């Protein structure tokens, strides 16, 4: 056996799990694809976001908060090991509103969630003036914001790089340019790649993003994932403008203001489109009028990996025990949980997180 675990997928989800297993002394091999693959990890917005997650699914809200709480330790360990700051900022984040009634409706929904969580769900409502005291760049049309103190942001690309770097430093192996086309189980698992190479491992974690839709059924999963396009713009580098991120604006470490994101059901089309760029720009200028003069230097689009209800899937295969499916559209927020807590679940250790709520069985009901 070449490895105890093979991780199919070298994005942020796959590498978080791989790093988490490798640092516990397990031998892990990651199979990664090509430069041109759909790579959600390369197009991520970079929020570590609790707000709005699991509004009607308390277990998801808890799991997200748990990961957000682990992020500081996770980033600090990765930062120390790689000598690179991940630019983590967790001082809270906003959802900005332009309509009083909508803000009231959202606040009422949070009250409901708070009740379901036994009162443990911290958030604050800021009126327009209070918001502008915190964020003077926010324009007069904003009526207020919901501030969630556990929200924050990081550089998703620095995270990906740190994982790629430190996983190797720990002795993990990454095979690049590999497309897994078949899996069988002579003794353990054997994966066959498009180039003919085979890789054997005791267990497999399928973290192939949208690739799970085709690979999943080979391993006995439903893997009901679909692409959802998100387009993002980024400005030229600007002086400090925003203290905290909002759900669709964040000033990145290099100074650019990142503007997101669309949610488009357009299949496997990851093009940027002018109409969406214009709408994103209009909303950004409405929120922060000073952005009007800023230049957009780049745009990009990536395909989110969406499940029917938007929640993650953590599932061991009934047909092939030892094969696990891990998929979500919040690979940055959940990276800390995937790295630090999922290994216990994979290894069926005592104290492993209860992930029954994220079984894909929920889609057969």
């Amino acid at each position, binding site marked *: 056996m070449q490895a105890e675990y093979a991780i199919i997928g070298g994005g942020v989800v796959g590498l978080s799990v791989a790093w988490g297993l490798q640092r516990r002394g397990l031998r892990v091999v990651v199979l990664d694809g090509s430069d041109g693959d759909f790579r959600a990890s390369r197009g991520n917005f970079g929020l570590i976001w609790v707000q709005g997650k699991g509004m009607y699914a308390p277990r998801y809200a808890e799991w997200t908060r748990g990961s957000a709480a682990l992020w500081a330790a996770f980033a600090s360990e990765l930062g120390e090991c790689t000598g690179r700051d991940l630019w983590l900022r967790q001082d809270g984040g906003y959802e900005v509103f332009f309509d009083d009634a909508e803000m009231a409706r959202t606040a009422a929904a949070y009250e409901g969630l708070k009740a379901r969580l036994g009162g443990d769900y911290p958030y604050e409502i800021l009126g327009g003036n209070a918001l502008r005291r915190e964020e003077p760049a926010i324009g007069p049309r904003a009526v207020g914001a919901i501030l969630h103190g556990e929200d924050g942001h990081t550089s998703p690309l620095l995270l990906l790089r740190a994982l790629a770097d430190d996983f190797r430093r720990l002795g993990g192996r990454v095979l690049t340019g590999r497309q897994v086309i078949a899996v069988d189980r002579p003794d353990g698992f054997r994966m066959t790649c498009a180039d003919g190479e085979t890789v054997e491992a005791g267990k497999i974690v399928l973290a192939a993003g949208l690739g799970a839709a085709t690979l999943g059924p080979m391993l006995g999963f439903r893997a009901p994932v679909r692409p959802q396009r998100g387009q993002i713009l980024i400005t*030229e580098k600007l002086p400090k403008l925003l203290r905290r991120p909002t759900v669709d604006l964040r000033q990145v470490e290099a100074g650019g203001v990142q503007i997101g994101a669309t949610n*488009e059901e357009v299949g496997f089309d990851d*093009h*940027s489109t*002018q109409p969406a760029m*214009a709408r994103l720009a209009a909303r950004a200028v409405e929120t922060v009028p000073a952005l009007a003069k800023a230049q957009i230097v*780049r745009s990009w689009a990536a395909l989110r990996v969406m499940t029917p209800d938007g929640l993650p899937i953590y599932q061991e295969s009934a047909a092939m025990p030892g094969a696990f499916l891990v998929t979500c559209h919040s690979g940055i927020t959940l990276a800390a949980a995937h790295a630090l807590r999922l290994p216990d679940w994979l290894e069926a250790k005592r104290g492993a997180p209860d992930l029954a709520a994220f079984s894909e069985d929920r889609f057969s009901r």
Partner: protein
Amino acid sequence: MAEFDLAIIGAGPAGMAAAVTADKAGLRVALLDEQPRPGGQIYRNVSQASADRVRVLGADYALGRGLTTALAESGVQHIHGAVVWAIEDGFRLSYTANGTAAQVSARRVLIATGALERPLPIPGWTLPGVMTAGAAQILLKGSGIVPRQAVLAGSGPLIYLVAAQMVRAGVPPLALVETQSTRDMIGALRHMPGALRGWRGLAKGLGLIRELRRAGVKRFTGADRLKVEGMDRAEALCFRAGGEDHRIACETVLLHHGVVPNTQVARSIGVSHRWSSAQQTFTPVLDAWGGTDRPGLFIAGDGAGISGAMVAEIAGRLAALKLAEEAGHLGISERDRRAAPLLRARARELAIRPFLDAAYPPYPGALRPDDDTLICRCEEVTAGEIRQTATLGCLGPNQAKSFTRAGMGPCQGRYCGLTVTAILSQTTGQSPDETGYYRIRPPLKPVTLAELAAMAETGATNPEGE
């Protein structure tokens, strides 16, 4: 949104010739160009140039007047000062002119965006006082400015032309430091029979070299280990040639080692490209008319592969004939009858190209820069950092970009793209085609949020599901 039968991007020789030809055939043509006046880089400002400037720039430059005059007399809608920043299926072009974003739609598009100078990353190339020879020529064409105390370094026919133009302007360069070697020239001799068919081009080149010799401009060939020295700005060019180390104190260093197709527009809409080992660059995959693998989308001029102004003009006419035929304005036999002399002329003009490509290869030191040399000037990324990404599993430039920020700046990777592909290809052992190129997206040139936002407000956009 204004609608046309044909939209052409770029008013250089290819774009102008295509526009005039298509207009004559009866197509409604829009010609979008960034400059205030037509001409492209090669004929920049030619319609306004004084007699003295034409004397300095030479007879080939004055040839452009035929095209600018024909364009002015045509029915082509020339949208000048228009920076095209997006092209989408349909086709829909988004551009900014006079601070306002606008769009045109056209059933067919010809990309005639020409060439870019091949970046020449050497130690010190980002210091103030260093620019490309092409940029120096643009200053000369546009404003009559000639850099003083300048050294020209690199390879290629343009170096001789710029040097001769500087001599004629009364400000000769201090020296020409050429990186091509005698061995390159000997290797190029096997292409001599072809080159002799294009003897006019060859004679022009020899004439320029004689002109420089008469003016007493010093030439070094086979130069290696190029390096610009200076603290806050360029103070000297250092190199090794003829077995000796040289240092030429100067105020300006003009670098050049050929031009490469500007493929940004074509790549942004998904046109296939292939590596050309003869030209050491990517070129779009085209048929004989300039048609791409996208129906209705054509490319003519240096953007199709470097062939110079005369070939560009011919290619523009050929593409326009095919486009006019596709649009139903020209019969196939008439198209072919008019294309035949153009195809013969193009073959004649292309005859010298293999010789030039072999005789003036890119400077090898810049294709494999030292680890410490900056290769992405926008984001200040070194060659060594790109090499390191290969050890972190990056097979291609898009992954390397994610890990280093190379290519994320305002130039959209125009100045580092080929270098990053080359470095990764050398490091991983994959071919340039396997390594690939940056994914190019809009905006092709920076656009302000206010310009974009105004398009949403005026309903220039279609509502889309969010």
